């Protein structure tokens, strides 16, 4: 098979890039080693929509997060991706942190973000009355928000596929070969895929792919972040994202509302060598619960709905590793950390622009029309609340997952979609079914059976 562009990795960055090139009339193939899109780092992050206020000024990350912020907002509104501008409050818990707030405001300014506002102790208390007494002051970042990372990734990939991109799941790249008119990709499914251009968006494995092309300019050290998701009844304890102030004691943990109506606490930051180890640990839970208790005492007495761990693709460099090797028909888009959720669209745009500047034929860009996504966020009308949707299709009135209020209509919609789920986990990410407080006590068996039947 021969394509104009072969993208390795169907995470947020790979899917956004695939979408960008299909919009430019290129033939695109996405090669993904796992069984679903958005199944690595893209699925297990803090799901924060960043302004980029605390990036390293002047860095590529700073530029792309700043630009991506607006691109994502606009795209999410068109696609129906749950996104909410909650605002964030950086809270200082000791004198050292308090003293560094001015510096952070200054840094935000250098990153082109002008709307931070210093908060006194009483102003913090007014904004977040449930925080512990030891909050000394803070910095308000009114434009920070939360977004559904799963829907975002699915929207990019779906839009790309609907515009003609080919998606190979369960296909791992095992080698690359230079051929006269491009690069040949060898896979573990014994397919040979040729691209006039190959984009490495392999996330945690971007250094491995980079090495296949003969480059060793960075290595990915997975940094594990464990998180605890609290019950929806905890949601009214916080109004903003509660961000830590980086200090000599480390980066700290955050407390954030989620678009699904829960509250998350985390992440830990644990460097490791294993790129597959996403296990949670008792020590991690104890660390987070102690932090939570110190910050928002009312939180930790709530029931825990879920726990998870994600791996950030951290490298030895502080900035993104986006490099162009056009002699090899190869582009590396590696070292994209958690800010990639916000910046992915800007990264895709940047890659295309740089190619254009380099004189590579990449086609005229048509407007991207995002594929409409089913809403799984609490701040927008859900199908179970939608009189019109139920009248059209009564299965939107049949709630199957009671904790998350997911209807049979939504399951069917996922099964019939462009990129259907092939695992229960994939179905959860598309619909929230079984993701709630009972974790499938009531509906798990029926949901599993419906998935099995849909796959037949």
């Amino acid at each position, binding site marked *: 098979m021969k394509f104009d562009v072969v993208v390795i990795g169907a995470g947020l960055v790979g899917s956004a890039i695939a979408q960008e090139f299909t919009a430019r009339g290129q033939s695109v193939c996405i090669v993904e080693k796992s069984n679903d899109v958005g199944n690595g780092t893209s699925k297990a992050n803090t799901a924060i929509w960043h302004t980029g206020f605390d990036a390293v000024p002047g860095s590529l990350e700073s530029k792309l997060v700043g630009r991506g912020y607006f691109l994502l907002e606009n795209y999410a509104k068109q696609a129906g991706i749950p996104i909410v501008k909650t605002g964030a409050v950086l809270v200082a818990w000791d004198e050292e942190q308090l003293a560094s707030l001015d510096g952070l405001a200054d840094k935000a300014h250098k990153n082109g973000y002008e709307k931070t506002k210093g908060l006194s102790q009483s102003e913090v208390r007014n904004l977040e009355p449930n925080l512990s007494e030891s909050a000394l002051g803070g910095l308000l970042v009114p434009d920070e928000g939360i977004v559904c990372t799963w829907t975002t990734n699915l929207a990019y990939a779906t839009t790309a596929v609907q515009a003609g991109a080919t998606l190979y799941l369960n296909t791992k790249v095992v080698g690359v070969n230079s051929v006269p008119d491009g690069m040949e990709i060898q896979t573990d499914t014994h397919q040979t895929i040729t691209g006039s251009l190959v984009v490495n968006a392999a996330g945690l494995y971007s250094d491995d792919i980079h090495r296949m092309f003969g480059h060793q300019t960075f290595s990915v050290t997975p940094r594990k972040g464990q998180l605890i*998701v609290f019950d*929806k*009844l905890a949601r009214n304890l916080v109004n903003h994202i509660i961000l830590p102030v980086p200090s000599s004691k480390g980066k700290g943990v955050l407390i954030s509302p989620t678009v699904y109506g829960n509250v998350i606490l985390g992440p830990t930051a644990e460097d490791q060598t294993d790129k*597959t180890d*996403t*296990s*949670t*640990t*008792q020590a*991690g*839970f104890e660390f987070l619960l102690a932090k939570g208790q110190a910050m928002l005492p009312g939180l930790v007495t709530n*029931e*825990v*709905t*879920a*726990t*998870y761990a994600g791996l950030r693709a951290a490298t030895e460099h502080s900035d993104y590793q986006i490099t162009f090797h056009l002699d090899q028909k190869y582009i590396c888009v590696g070292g994209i950390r958690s800010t990639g959720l916000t910046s992915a669209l800007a990264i895709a745009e940047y890659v295309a622009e740089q190619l254009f500047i380099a004189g590579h034929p990449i086609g005229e860009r048509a407007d991207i029309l995002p594929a409409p996504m089913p809403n799984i966020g609490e701040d927008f009308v859900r199908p*179970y*609340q939608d*009189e019109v949707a*139920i*009248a059209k299709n*009564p*299965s939107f*009135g*049949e*709630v199957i997952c*009671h*904790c998350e*209020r997911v*209807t049979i209509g939504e399951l069917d919609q996922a099964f019939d979609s462009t990129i259907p789920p092939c695992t*229960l*986990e994939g179905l959860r990410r598309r619909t929230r079914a079984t993701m709630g*407080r*009972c*974790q*499938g*006590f*009531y509906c*798990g*068996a*029926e949901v*599993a*059976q419906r998935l*099995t039947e849909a796959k037949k």
Partner: protein
Amino acid sequence: MAENVDALVIGAGPAGLTAAWALKNLGIENVLVAEREAVAGGIPRHSHHPGYGIRDLHRFMNGPSYAKTLVTRAKDAGVRIANNFSVTDWEQDGLITATSKNGRQLLMPQVVILATGARERPRPARLVAGNRVRGIYTTGELQQAVYERKLPIGTRAVVVGAEHVSFSALMTLNHADVKVVAMVTEHHKHQSYPAFYFGAKVRYQVPLRTTTSVVSVNGTDRVESVTLRDNGGNESNVECDVVVFTGNWIADYELAQRSGITRDSGTTGPLVNQLLRTSQPNVFAAGNILHPVTTADVAALDGVIAARSAAEYLTGRSLLGNTVSINVAPPFTWVSPQQVLVGAGMPPRNCFQLWVTEFPSSSLVVVQQGTQTLFSQRLRLVPGRPAELKSDWISSVDPAGGPIQIRLG
């Protein structure tokens, strides 16, 4: 426009069905049961073993037959049961919103009986670390997967918990040809009836590992092992592809919370007096939402009391008076009901349900008001199993004597 109903019962399990049936028998005209599942009957529908109906129907039947009997009895009495009918919102003014195939519906009931039951805490709520993999169940999900959905389960299971429901999980696993390689409890012995345990031990040859906790569930795609820790701190791995988390009950209190009624921190369910009235005069509760958990027949019999109290409210005969609260001292974690309305009769089955989470040092239970001992009784106190404290003493409660305390003697 909101539909007016005399009585709305939320949940068509044993408690809700019994309450609705009893309301009809008390002459209440318009009784609607809202059931979110496709089939009424509640948890017993999935429990294909005998032992149901003893105290309420005076029969000995399996779960599904019991559920069917209660559904039929309610329908025959003229109760309307709406299936696939999910109550989603409950405003403070009493307006209820529900979703069904017919769309969004508004209901304005004169009285509500909450009978939403209880469920087992799943793995994340117990903060068991490790991987998010396939093959992790609660008993509730397992029983539906095996009996209702006939899904493949696995080959080797570890059962977490050793109380009644854990043995129910054991039977279900046996039915699905899954070998149980270990049953794990943090307590120093199992908490079911000796006969259950010996039966299981002989029949299924299950090794019981006491004073042991589950540290993590491990695997890449599905469960490959669990890591256990004994009370000496020694960790060991047990290979298995299924883990069933049993017991560790929590009331399904979300709606109760939304309606703004007061909840008891011990049971997690609504706080009620012995007539099963909540903090809102027209809202009553029955079943395992009040005491997670008792057997289905005990839950069902709450329904009779809740219905009688609701009917009294509807006919303007609600008793008012002094309320005295009941507190529990450790090792007790809760009592249900938690209030005594002085001069108002007995709680369901003339007893209070008491709960411990540890095997206590004594079996003597003392009920005290101020310095006055009202009552004492020797009870078999086993974690994960309710103990029934006789209620005769409530006739001697002093309305001005302050809170009642239940403690170990």
